[in-house]
């Protein structure tokens, strides 16, 4: 029996102030996938992510877990980690515990208090990202990489089926980028978490992902990592533009 895709896009188009941003994008993300959505800056990657998250409305057919996006109510199934630089004011007076616990808000429901085992869940989520020692620290005191781990813990605490990350390594110290990707790989393989990773980073963890979608207003390539690796490097080089050298 065929499994229902977690995300299914058919002929999705989006225009911003009469400028086309996405043109007939079709894409499918299955359970267990680790999809890297790549493309140069301004290619529409973040816009596509926002459409999947319901933050922007677009033309075309969008289904989440088999349901049309307009009917979809189980937002706790999707964990979202935004670009660190846009996410929050670093002076915000909140502890790591408070930030991670806030990930349970939707799951707990309106007019209802946080679940009684919230503290335990916070600890488990922080352990999954190796940040349990920082539970009582103020979020703004942490480095960029540590903050991103905390935001992943906030996304994980509601036990999502799909983790969506928008350029998560922007603002993260380069020496911590690899360990960050290793952690994502572990979440995908050991915890069976389906992941969509948006990045313009050509050095993204191509040995750890399962699928690649190359976007530049439209999908230029979509396939498994093995198929992607067979592409002529000049082709990727051309898609990215001359300023980036394919590795």
């Amino acid at each position: 029996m065929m499994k229902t895709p977690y995300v299914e896009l058919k002929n999705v188009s989006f225009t911003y102030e009469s400028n086309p941003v996405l043109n007939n994008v079709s894409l499918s993300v299955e359970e267990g996938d680790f999809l890297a959505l790549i493309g140069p800056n301004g290619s529409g990657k973040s816009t596509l992510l926002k459409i999947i998250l319901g933050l922007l409305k677009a033309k075309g057919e969008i289904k989440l877990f088999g349901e049309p996006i307009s009917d979809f109510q189980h937002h706790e199934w999707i964990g979202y980690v935004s670009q660190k630089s846009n996410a929050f004011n670093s002076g915000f007076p909140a502890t790591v515990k408070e930030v991670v616990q806030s990930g349970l808000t939707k799951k707990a429901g309106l007019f209802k208090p946080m679940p009684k085992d919230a503290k335990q869940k916070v600890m488990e989520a922080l352990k999954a990202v190796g940040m349990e020692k920082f539970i009582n620290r103020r979020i703004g005191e942490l480095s960029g990489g540590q903050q991103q781990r905390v935001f992943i813990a906030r996304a994980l605490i509601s036990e999502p089926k799909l983790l969506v990350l928008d350029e998560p390594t922007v603002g993260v110290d380069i020496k911590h980028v690899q360990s960050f990707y290793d952690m994502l790989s572990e979440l995908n393989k050991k915890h069976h978490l389906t992941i969509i990773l948006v990045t313009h980073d050509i050095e993204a963890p191509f040995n750890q992902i399962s699928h690649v979608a190359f976007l530049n207003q439209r999908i230029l390539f979509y396939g498994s990592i093995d198929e992607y690796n067979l592409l002529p490097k000049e082709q990727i080089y051309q898609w990215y533009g001359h300023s980036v050298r394919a590795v």
Partner: protein
Amino acid sequence: MIEAILHYEFLQNAFLSGIIIGFIAPLLGVFIVVRRMSLIADALSHVTLAGITGGLLLNQHIAALAFFNPIYFGIAASILGSVLIERLRVLYKHFSELAIPIIMSCGIGLSAVFISLANGFTTDVMGYLFGTVSAVSRQDLWIIVAIAVIVLLFLTIFYKELFVLSFDEEYAKASGLPATMIHFLFMIIVALTIAASMRIVGILLVSSLITLPVAGAMRLSKGFKETLVYSVVFGEMAVIIGLILAFYLDLAPGGTIVVTSIAILIIVILCKKAVQKGAQQ
């Protein structure tokens, strides 16, 4: 002084309303400050003034409304102002801060027109501008109590959603939270709190009671709940010390409350610096 409070109803009203406002204004102020909306309190307080002066004018000219408390007009204007600010923020989405000066000038302009049309309620207006805690009636006190109950209920019910919305609005929307509805309710609650606070500190000083205790709290606290607690403590200290000083020194209570708030803030900043210096050494 305690004897005087026990004897005189106006002093009881003043202290009770002061303590209530000293609690709810900084509590709501934490959410206002962390959402970078501090100036909205100023804009709404000026719109409230327009409502009150309009109300006073109607009191003068329409016999049926002669005994209608102008605070109700202030509350209505404040709520209308909060809705208009939101509309303007959407209209000027790339320059959303424009909403504040537009609404603020509208409030000041209308107030000036109403005052000039009335020719005779200068004393009342001065009271609303700088606060007349001694003129707080039992009816005013009950209005403040009702508003405080609404504010506390709102903050208790929507605390977790407000935290998410304040910390990361995009995440809140992506999580499927009804962010627009909660923000709209929040703005109405802000409008109500401003209308309730103005009797104590006056319209020109109301934003100080909302923001100054929070500014001090943010220097000391590590977490959000700690910020809420410190803000309320500093707010209550400012109101109680300010009212006592005003009683003994025969000063304007609104002014003494705000000056006490500033003094607390300066002490907190200096203490924090001294502690940091000590830690470095």
